[in-house]
């Protein structure tokens, strides 16, 4: 029965046979042709049938640590109920051990560069039901169906006490964006000490709570970046720092992408950076062009500014603004609170009794307002724009 089950299981395996090799991870990879040569006196048959059949995992715990996951199929634990697991203490222990490695490698697998894209998608869509004998103690981790998890978790808590620090939280990976990384003590690392920034992912000091799946960054008290080395990548301090830096840059580039119009469809750093550069250059050109235009209308401007600044009653943050408060302006409290110039120009309109376009939209509307007002007002020496128009209208 053993072999039949497992052969069947092996036959179902497709393109996602993992070959897990990681120096830190004691999981031994074995060729797929030799699936279960020495299986498990450990696994209960029922457990196997329930668990492995459904989710397609195979665990050999004789060596204790070889793991292989077949994840080409969506791992929907449709009928899989944790309550089916026998409450066997030995099993629990093994399962707990397995889950540790499963998590560890699983997490790393997801971030592995060689990982299949499909796999990642599957993982993201479905809840991965890794045999969780581990402690599912904390709330956010709900890999398996919640109704079934309590059983195993309770059992495992008793046994899997010292089962690695990051098995429980590895489950977070499935339910959240997969960002599992191995913990790396960066405090000892002098390279990272120099980057005193708190924005990156930081593990808690408590060894039991790894937030390997969390995206939110908790600022550390010491202010260091705590990075985790991803699976299959160098754990050199330099490369870690590199990755931190690269992630920061890409984060900011995403921010810039929202800012620059028309950058949504652009993918790729190079093209987007070119777009950004072009945009900045175009903005600067626009300023130059507009300043040329302004200098062309400049003689008009002179009359403006004098009157404007002489009569400006705005409470401007600029401290050097002339404080010739004019009594002409009514209290601006009833006007829009949006900005400074707006109430000013709106008040002008009310003064003149002209257009009552007290728009609060923007500066443009007030500008148009002013231009319109010019036709109606006769004496408006105190309006900056009005004098402009007045000098135009009455040459």
């Amino acid at each position, binding site marked *: 029965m053993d072999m039949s089950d497992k052969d069947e299981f092996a036959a179902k395996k497709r393109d996602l046979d993992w070959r897990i090799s990681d120096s830190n991870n004691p999981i031994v990879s074995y060729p797929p042709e030799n699936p279960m040569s020495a299986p498990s006196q450990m696994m209960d048959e029922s457990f196997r049938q329930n668990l492995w059949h459904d989710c397609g995992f195979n665990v050999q715990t004789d060596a204790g640590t070889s793991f292989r996951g077949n994840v080409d199929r969506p791992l929907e634990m449709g009928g899989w109920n944790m309550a089916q697991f026998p409450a066997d203490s030995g099993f629990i222990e093994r399962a707990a051990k397995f889950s540790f490695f499963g998590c560890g490698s699983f997490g790393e697998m997801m971030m592995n560069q060689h990982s299949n894209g499909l796999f990642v998608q599957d993982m993201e869509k479905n809840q991965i039901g890794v045999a969780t004998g581990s402690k599912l103690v904390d709330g956010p981790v709900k890999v398996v169906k919640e109704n079934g998890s309590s059983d195993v978790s309770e059992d495992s808590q008793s046994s899997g006490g010292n089962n690695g620090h990051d098995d429980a939280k590895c489950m977070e990976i499935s339910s959240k964006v997969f960002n599992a990384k191995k913990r790396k003590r960066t405090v000892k690392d002098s390279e990272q000490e*120099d980057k*005193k920034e708190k*924005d990156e992912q930081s593990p808690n000091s408590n060894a039991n709570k790894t937030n390997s799946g969390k995206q939110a960054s908790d600022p550390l008290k010491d202010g260091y970046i705590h990075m985790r080395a991803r699976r299959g990548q160098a754990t050199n301090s330099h490369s870690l720092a*590199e990755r931190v*830096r*690269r992630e920061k*840059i890409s*984060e*900011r580039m995403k*921010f*810039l992408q*929202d*800012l*620059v119009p028309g950058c949504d469809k652009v993918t790729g*750093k*190079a093209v987007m*950076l*070119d777009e*950004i*550069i072009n945009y*900045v*250059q175009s*903005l*600067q050109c*626009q*300023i*130059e062009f*507009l*300043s*040329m*235009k*302004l*200098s062309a*209308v*400049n003689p*008009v*401007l*002179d009359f*403006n*500014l*004098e009157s*404007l*600044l002489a009569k400006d009653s*705005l409470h401007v*943050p*600029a401290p*050097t*603004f002339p404080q010739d408060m004019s009594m002409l302006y009514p209290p601006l409290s009833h006007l829009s609170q*949006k*900005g*400074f*110039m707006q109430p000013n120009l709106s008040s002008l309109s009310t003064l003149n009794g002209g257009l009552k376009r007290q728009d609060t939209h*923007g*500066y443009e509307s007030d*500008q148009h307002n*002013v*231009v319109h007002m010019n036709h109606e007002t006769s004496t408006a020496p105190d309006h900056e*724009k009005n004098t*402009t128009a007045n000098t*135009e209208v009455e040459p």
Partner: protein
Amino acid sequence: MASADKTINTDVPEKDVFAIHFLQSLSNLRIQNLFNSPDTTNYRVRKIKKAAYVSMARAAGGTSRLWSRALLRRAAKGNNKIVRFPRRKRKVTWKISSKRRRSDQRAPVVEDAAERLRNLVPGGGGMETSKLMEETAHYIKCLSMQVKVMQCLVDGLSPK
């Protein structure tokens, strides 16, 4: 557009602040009696452009932004004025040269573009790439705001 990211803060003041600063700088220009007898149109244009940038830097936060500080310092140097900036709390900063050397090895695509950006954004020479991106974002916002203000002004003042 307010930044939702708590790590990057790129809020710019309202358009009105920019407008006020710009008009003030223009009035200062006028007080200098430049416009009554302009030597060349080019001279006036340059003056106005400089006034626009300086007012933008002031409106955008004065000395609280790296690019605005660099801009103001550059402008003040041109006027032979001595500008004193208040001392800010600064984190550990790297030396520029060492940073550059290292950054050349990193992601050459990004670094080439960053080099071009550094030439565009004032004060970009002393920034690391990630910081440069932040400053660029804020700079873009302020530039667009300033462009809007100037456009409004031109529209309002241009004879119909």
